[in-house]
């Protein structure tokens, strides 16, 4: 939590971060360009499309980049929150599906309620469902000592297949034709945050949540206890006289609830109905988002937007530069690898310096 206030240090960090940022881009660009050339594509056109697709216009930035970042930020926060407590919740994906399912179900059941009631109800349902989805692995860890890495992964499959079953069966649209639910009524949808864009209030919600978590982890007693448990459960228990089990319980369920809300926000802000392939694996990408952010809530916002921009740019690479999805996937993975490598280098440099 300590900050070195000396200006010289601050300037050094800025220079260092500039150099590393440039190096990250150069490295990625270099390797990406070689790969694209090998595939017979124009790397300059690809880069231009990527940047334009992510930041090239107000519409691209708000309606695509930021919209894409919302589920990444929310699941990233869920993962960061759990990891800070030493809970290895790999189950954000399943919790997200549970949240989306509950949000749609409640939204359709209570479709006649006014927006002031229905929207909070829909989002709360996703929170509760995500938390409940985490309850099974939580109890298995705390009561039976079963490692949560495996149980949360398994619960992901249950969540994904449950959603698939529901859209084919009980929650299928009334016409019974396509595997999807009916759309949420207007009252259950998140309104636009910026008029004329697709950016919905979920983005503001994720910023608020990140801020709240950052403050709570840093200044609140509970947040401190959670960090202590994550850093050393033994010391938290012995020196801190902290009820470690209680902290783990709250952290695990809280993480599940946040991931669940990511699902709720996605259906109520973007898709309005539940589909089988709602998530392209946000719950897993979230782990990279959270780790890259140093498990820091404010950092998660930054890395979430970064990943959102990357995905938005990837779409534009297909549309505008005619590069097939599989090549785009490779470039996307390259960027993540380069960023991870440089992050690691940076940490080492930082350690030596301090």
């Amino acid at each position, binding site marked *: 939590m300590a900050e070195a206030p000396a200006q010289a240090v601050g300037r050094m960090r800025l220079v260092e971060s500039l150099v590393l940022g440039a190096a990250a881009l150069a490295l990625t660009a270099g390797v990406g360009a070689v790969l694209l050339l090998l595939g017979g594509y124009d790397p300059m056109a690809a880069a231009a499309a990527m940047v334009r697709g992510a930041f090239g216009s107000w519409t691209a930035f708000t309606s695509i980049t930021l919209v894409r970042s919302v589920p990444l930020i929310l699941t990233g926060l869920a993962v960061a929150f759990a990891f800070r407590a030493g809970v290895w919740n790999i189950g954000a994906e399943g919790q997200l599906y549970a949240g989306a399912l509950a949000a749609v179900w409640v939204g359709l059941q209570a479709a006649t309620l006014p927006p002031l009631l229905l929207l909070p109800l829909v989002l709360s349902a996703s929170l509760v469902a995500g938390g409940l989805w985490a309850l099974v692995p939580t109890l298995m860890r705390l009561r039976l000592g079963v490692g949560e890495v495996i149980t949360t992964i398994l619960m992901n499959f249950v969540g994904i297949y449950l959603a698939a079953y529901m859209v084919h069966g009980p929650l299928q649209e009334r016409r019974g034709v396509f595997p999807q639910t009916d759309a949420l009524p207007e009252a259950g949808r998140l309104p636009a945050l910026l008029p004329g864009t697709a950016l919905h209030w979920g983005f503001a919600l994720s910023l608020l949540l990140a801020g709240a978590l950052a403050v709570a982890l840093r*200044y609140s*007693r509970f947040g*401190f206890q959670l960090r202590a448990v994550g850093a*050393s459960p033994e010391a*938290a228990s*012995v020196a801190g006289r902290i009820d470690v089990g209680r902290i783990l319980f709250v952290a695990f369920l809280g993480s599940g609830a946040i991931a669940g809300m990511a699902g709720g926000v996605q259906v109520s802000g973007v898709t309005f109905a539940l589909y089988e392939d709602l998530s392209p694996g946000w719950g897993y990408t979230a782990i990279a988002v959270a780790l890259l952010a140093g498990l820091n809530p404010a950092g998660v916002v930054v890395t979430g937007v970064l990943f959102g921009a990357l995905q938005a740019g990837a779409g534009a690479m297909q549309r505008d530069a005619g590069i097939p999805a599989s090549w785009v996937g490779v470039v996307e993975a390259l960027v993540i690898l380069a960023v991870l490598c440089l992050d690691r280098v940076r940490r080492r440099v930082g*350690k030596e310096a301090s």
Partner: protein
Amino acid sequence: MTSALVRLEGIERRFGAVMALSGADLALRPGEVHGVLGANGAGKSTLFNVLGGLLRPDAGRIEVGGKAVILASPRDAWSHGIGLVHQHFTLVPRLTVLENLALGTRGPGGRPGAVRDAALEVIGRTGLSVPLDEAVEELGVGDRQRVEILKALLRDPRILVLDEPTAVLTPAEAAGLFDLLRDLAGDGRAVALVAHKVDEVLEVSDRLTVLRDGTSVLTCSREETSEAEIVRAMVGDDDVDAAALGLGDRAGPRGVVGQHESRIVAELVGVRVAGRGGSGLDGVDISVRAGEIVGVAGVDGNGQRELAAVLAGRLAPESGTARLPEAVGFISQDRSREGLVADFDLTENVALAFQRKAGFRSGSWLRWEALEGAAEEIRRRHDVQAPSVRTLASSLSGGNQQRVIVGRELEMAGDLLVAENPTRGLDIAAAAFVHEELQRLASDGVAVVLISTDLDEVLTLSHRIMAIARGGLREVEEAHRTRQGVGSLMLGTDDRNG
């Protein structure tokens, strides 16, 4: 002196900004037991790791048998005949002794038959007796230590280096170990004993080297030196008063200074708990009065951890009653795991305990300015060597970590402080600081329970002494207040009804 088996010259090694070794020299001759002494943070462990190929020096020269070598890995060290016995056990608890020995010698594919023959041969030669087919987790610490040594000896090293081997041993076991080391040296090996207890090293060594701040400051034979000179070399203060460091009059009983009249602060009656890895508690009675230090002496694994946990209010008795005060200070023997969070800075480590105290929180929020002030106060008052309260605990030496913990737990102790091996692994100055603080606390009217495997410490500090053996606790009568008397009770050899 070409006769040295291994010679280290001008070894330097830094970790970030810290120079752990800055010009350390060490020469081990065949046939000698060589003591390597130093306060905590003096560089002993680093030197040990350099010898074992676990750390590569930044500068300096290592010779084995007169030829310069590079020890880049433990395998290199082995191939040059250097065997290590670590302070921390490196055994797999679930496996038997023999399986552990096989792991140590041939890797996973070792043939137990051949290993058994080799082990029996070494046991026959050295008298190191260990039950080969017992699972290591069933063994006491003394036995485990012997397994570690046996493991090292199986490779027939010409140079044997032991890091703090007596930390977990009873006086009798330590004496047995020293005899063994002398025998091993008698066979023409060089034996190096890394330790911080001056009297032990003097007892067994032919020659010794003292490290201070990463440099060898004294190398001489035992006859040429005195305890006082060694202590001065270790501490680096010519005016050091040996008595103030707790070296004088070790076994002198402090006696009971009228505390019998004061109120009982904590009391356990007939407390039983199941053991966690050692004995549990088997019907323990103890009462502690305000202002007295009650010493609990015993060999590790006889129920001390459970006793400490019950007294600290962290473990409920399965039967019997525990009457404890509201606020109990607790100094865990496991500094780095239980006492501190390594990745937290000093303020956060103080906050770890203080987050429970009134005045350091308002509602759900912590009052960080107040906590930082408290940490600053602890740092200043207890002379913690750290640049600021924002220094990470992991970058402090063991002694300074303990100063933080002691400072914090003194504040946490309302009526009772439980200290569990509070000076284990500390240098003399740091240990003396801990002792002074415990005494000062008692004279301020706080009850102190000092649970320790260090008999000298218990004898020196305690108003009353109890011996713990196999989960049972017995008061040591005034007449038995000697190393031998308490030692025999610790081993449980004395008839319990006698």
